[in-house]
């Protein structure tokens, strides 16, 4: 009983350290790396952090039904994103339209 408590506790701290490290990366990355990729890099790090939290803090590891449900909903969101983005990126009259032109 006590040992399992310790193991789990250590686990929490390990994840914490991982998350802290990633936060530091989040913070310092833009100063170091080429800025064009800042956005993607930031979102990538955030995804890794989210994964850590889901798996360890939220104990998703080993949950079958719940795991699939989460995955299913994420896939749906991903689909929403992709199609709506296809739409904005393919809108034919972006340059002439007031609200979609990049500069005011």
């Amino acid at each position: 009983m006590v040992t399992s408590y310790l193991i789990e506790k250590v686990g929490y701290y390990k994840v914490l350290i991982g998350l802290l490290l990633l936060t530091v990366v989040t913070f310092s990355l833009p100063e170091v790396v080429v800025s064009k990729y800042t956005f993607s890099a930031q979102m990538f790090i955030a995804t890794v952090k989210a994964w850590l939290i889901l798996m360890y803090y939220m104990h998703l590891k080993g949950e079958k039904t719940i795991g699939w449900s989460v995955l299913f909903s994420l896939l749906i969101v991903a689909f929403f994103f992709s199609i709506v983005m296809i739409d904005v990126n393919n809108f034919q009259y972006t340059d002439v339209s007031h609200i979609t032109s990049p500069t005011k």
Partner: protein
Amino acid sequence: MGKSYFDETHCAIGHPKSTFMQWMLTVDHKRIGIMYAVVMFTFFFVAVAAALTMRFELFSPGQQYIEAQTFNQAFTLHGVIMIFMFIIPGIPAVFGNIVMPLMIGAKDVSFPRLNWFTFWLYIFGCIVALTSLFNFNISEGEVLFKFADTGWTFYAPYSLNTDTNVITTLVAGFILGMASILTGLNFLVTIHRLRAPGMEFFKMPLFVWGIYATAWIQLLATPVVGITLVLAILEKYFGIGIFDPSKGGDPVLFQHLFWIYSHPAVYLMILPAFGIMSEIIPAFSRREIFGYRTIALSSASIAGIGYLVWGHHLYTSGMSDTAKVIFSFLTFFVAIPTGIKFYDWIATMYKGKIILATPMLWALGTIITFAVGGLTGVTIAMVGADIHLQDTYYTIAHFHYAMLGGVVFLLFAGMHYWFPLVFGKMYNETHAKIAFALNFIGFNVLWFPMFIAGYMGMPRRYFDYLPEFQIYHQISFIGALIFVTGLIYMFTVLIRATKNGKPCGPNPWNATTLEWHLPSSPPPLENHTKVPYVDFRPYEYHHGQPVVKFDENMRRID
């Protein structure tokens, strides 16, 4: 015979003595289902009244009785009530609550108190919607009809500009959405956790499959419209800019977000209705259903594909042409599983013994009307055709055939089918059949001319129209009168039967699913006396008789 659920109940709080309080506080799924039905039914008649007002106004061109603004509020009221207060809670909240737990051998839903809370949340949402109807100008003693005039779609920027009570209506929509989410959540957990031992997913009755697929849509699509409504409210209050073109906001984004929910919502309505169809057809053909697995899986795939096709409402919205093509392509995939279901039902009738009792008549009638609704849906899923037909009466006719001729008809079928289960009494078959005939004829006379008017270019949401469309509107008006007569007739028959109907045993239809194996009729408080072990398929017949039989301890004796 023991006490029925009408005599005793569990309550969310305390042990009230008065019958009234016992109903208000009840956590029993059957009672909650009945209360939903009563409330929905009441609102429903408000919406029907709004519809009739529109039909009267449209009887001939020009202004007849009401002002343009009032007409616009009337169709908004009609749409909002029909969609958010009637058809979306609709079959899940009524029959999902009443029969789904019985069908899987559960004593109640997973979270009975949440179920009670959800019901009251729904009522609260309805009350908020009602408060948005009027503005009271106390100092001048005026009452102004100020219901939103945006259409049930609340398209920005019109909804942001109008000075009617849009915010209250949006809040009501949000609350009703929450109630819908919680219903779905409750059912999902119930179906996952509380099936009787031995009942695998592929041994569940098909109605439960319908509810299951629907629950996923309620859970994962509703939040999107919820947040869209919240964003619209924030936009109206604080001007965050997100849908306001003068700040760079894009009205088309609103349409995306709105239909991301509202398209799946139409499958949310139809899937449990299809479930009812799958119960009725084998029961009245006295034989096992054809293609059980394909029907079950098609429900799941309709729900899944339903998430991917919302853009077919945006064919003329100014969306990019690329997206139009993608959405048109994806939309057709919904028709395949739906078609499979239809053919499976027809095949179930083959070499059966078809009993044309009232529920079966409604079911077969629906096969006709929904086929029209679905096939015309396919017509407008073709981009080129929809560019002409979008926002015309063709679309209106399509979705009334789908929602009224599909969902509501099957709701009626279910009402006749489960009436003896809920009340332990039987209605008068002859009268019920006449009512069906009136409804069926009235419905078609009401809506069919609208396909032609739409094709000719009659736009929807028109207060006034050009004289060449008069004939269609007039035929339609006559249909509406027949239809409403039929409706009133039908309800009279049913309501009278709750008092004077002949008592009937627990299984008047010789049906097979678990809800017909209750110890008494109407069912007792905690459903089956004992939970059965389910090692059989849901629709097992032999020579027209149910195969599975139970003794009073719910042990199989066949």
